[in-house]
């Protein structure tokens, strides 16, 4: 410890000798690391696995059940299903859990005297909460998938409406239809929100209100994200037309825990498609997809290309910064060469000099890390301003900060390594004369 403090003091003395070049080195390092870190924050968050323990067990089934000829490889199954097709898929007992869902908008108030508040809806089924590990704070989830005049709120919305979160049994008006609160969800945010991955919806916040699927249909809520149809039915009358018509708006998820279950479900889908084809309900070639949660963004081609490109640019920028910092560092060490050579002449081994260099690395790491955090914070704010859609992904966690610390250490070491090796080798006598 005493020797460490000595090296620390030696390092500070060396900094005091030429503070400006040192400050410039730190600034360049901090700039490179900070800019890289700001972008890495979004890259890391957007590519995170929100459910690592089950992201390979939750699957998104898609089937090419369209009423026209579609026999080439460009024909992909639509990402949403009709109500009737969901019913057919739901008939299988192979999945451990299954839930159809879609998103919509509504207006909410507690009584008719209040101005209506726009809210986001997820219209879904009971298993949604279990499959996606949604935490319940108060009350309980619906016991089955039948229609019921009940809603589930997020904690934040309950607080906003009622001033507290324990509001189970209270009534509210959703588009002026009275509904009872059956549960309140603990504040949660699935990042990225992969249960709704197509059209890059996964960057959005989770919805504020959860409504049973059957109730959503009864209340004529249409999807606000993606829907398609093959006929000219007026689906604004969803309650009467939506369950039988060709309106495709439902996302469907199943939980298949084992490879055997997954294979069995693939077989089930194939048999279903064959049956539909045989019955003449679709002429297209059979094309079923069963995509895991962790692959869903890639499948939909929704990866953030801009962030990826930025990652490359900021990495190159970091390398340029490191090269510049290394050059400055080399000059600094060469100007200190005399002292280092004197230390060697008086008995310091190269390893002892390297230990002193490691303390220099530590100092450089700490200073550049502090600067990188400041610049990184500024960079994140700037990116929030430029790409507000990614705002939810701006958070730092311990793993990310640890990554920055390791990167700062490695960068400082790389910047110091060559100069320190140069300073440790060479003809002592010559260096002492210089």
């Amino acid at each position, binding site marked *: 410890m*005493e*020797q460490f403090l*000595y090296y620390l003091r030696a390092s500070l*003395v060396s900094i*005091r*000798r030429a503070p400006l070049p040192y400050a410039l080195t730190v600034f360049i390092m901090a700039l490179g690391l900070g800019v890289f870190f700001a972008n890495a924050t979004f890259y890391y968050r957007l590519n995170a696995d929100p459910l690592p323990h089950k992201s390979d067990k939750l699957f998104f089934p898609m089937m090419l059940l369209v009423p026209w000829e579609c026999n080439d490889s460009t024909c992909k199954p639509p990402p949403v299903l009709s109500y009737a097709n969901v019913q057919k898929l739901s008939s299988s007992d192979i999945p451990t859990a299954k839930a159809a869902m879609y998103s919509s908008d509504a207006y909410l108030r507690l009584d008719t005297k209040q101005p209506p508040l726009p809210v986001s809806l997820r219209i879904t089924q009971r298993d949604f909460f279990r499959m996606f590990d949604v935490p319940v704070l108060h009350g309980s989830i619906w016991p089955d998938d039948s229609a019921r005049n009940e809603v589930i709120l997020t904690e934040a919305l309950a607080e906003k409406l009622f001033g507290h979160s324990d509001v189970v049994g209270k009534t509210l008006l959703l588009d002026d239809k009275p509904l009872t609160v059956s549960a309140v969800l603990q504040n949660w945010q699935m990042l990225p929100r992969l249960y709704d991955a197509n059209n890059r919806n996964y960057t959005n916040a989770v919805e504020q209100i959860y409504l049973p699927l059957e109730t959503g249909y009864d209340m004529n809520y249409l999807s606000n994200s993606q829907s398609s149809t093959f006929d000219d039915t007026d689906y604004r009358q969803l309650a009467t037309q939506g369950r039988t018509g060709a309106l495709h708006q439902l996302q469907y998820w199943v939980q298949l825990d084992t490879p055997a279950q997954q294979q069995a479900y693939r077989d089930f889908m194939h048999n279903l498609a064959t049956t539909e084809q045989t019955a003449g309900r679709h002429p297209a070639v059979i094309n079923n997809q069963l995509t895991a949660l962790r692959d869903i963004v890639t499948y939909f081609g929704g990866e953030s290309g801009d962030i990826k490109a930025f990652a490359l640019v900021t990495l190159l920028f970091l390398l340029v910064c490191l090269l510049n910092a290394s050059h400055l560092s080399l000059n600094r060490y060469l100007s200190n060469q005399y*002292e280092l050579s*004197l*230390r*060697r*002449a*008086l*008995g*310091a*081994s*190269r*390893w*002892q000099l390297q230990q002193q260099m490691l303390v220099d690395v530590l100092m450089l790491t700490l200073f550049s890390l502090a600067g990188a955090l400041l610049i990184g914070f500024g960079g994140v704010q700037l990116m929030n301003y430029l790409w507000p859609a990614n705002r939810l992904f701006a958070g730092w966690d311990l793993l990310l900060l640890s990554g920055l610390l390791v990167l700062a250490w490695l960068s400082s070491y790389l910047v110091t390594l060559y100069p320190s090796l140069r300073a440790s080798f060479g*003809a*002592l*006598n010559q260096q*002492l004369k210089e």
Partner: protein
Amino acid sequence: MIKINNLSKIFRTELIETHALKNIQLHVSEGEFVALTGPSGSGKSTLLNVLGTLEDFDSGDYLLDGQSVKGLSDKALSALRNEKIGFIFQGFNLIKDYSLFDNIELPLRYRGFNAAERKRRVEYALEQVGLAARRDYHPSQLSGGQQQRVAIARAIAGQPRILLADEPTGNLDSLMARQVMELLEQINQNGCTILMVTHDPEQARRAGRQVQIIDGQLSDAAMYDPLAHNNPLVKSSPVAVA
């Protein structure tokens, strides 16, 4: 103490080779005070640097305390320099940002002494050179003579067996030079072997033995044992020969 056999050193550039030392043969016994003299560029400083392991050599052998220096690892050479050799440079080579205490303490740190032992040795060395009251001064606050005394204190703090001095009075006026020489004589009388490069004939005469180098070669008789009184190049008898 020091045995050098057929030692040669060549400085090479792309265009020329300079034979700085040619077949040097030199034996120095413990406790001797040897002055290395010779014209500028004759190789005396190079020889001193080789003796101090600051410079490598091309051929021959160098034995220090019976141990061959050739092929020693960096760690072993560092330990050798740290424990057995003290250096006094013409330009003092003090670190300006450090106090006298810190400067003198520097080689002791690499020796692994604890803080109390380092303090004891530094204070003793400062007393020896008469600068005990100025331990917290910085080199820039001292005269040239005082700075050289600090360098001597640094060299003797680790109680080395050999002191290598490269023109230790080269940058000093005559009064200060005399004081430094007296100090070196005193250190030598305490049993430390000293090899000193000097241009000054008067200082050379104060050494126990003079060894002259011309064009990288020792003058014939100088290379032999210090007790070779019949050697015409030995100007006076050695002192404090063990």
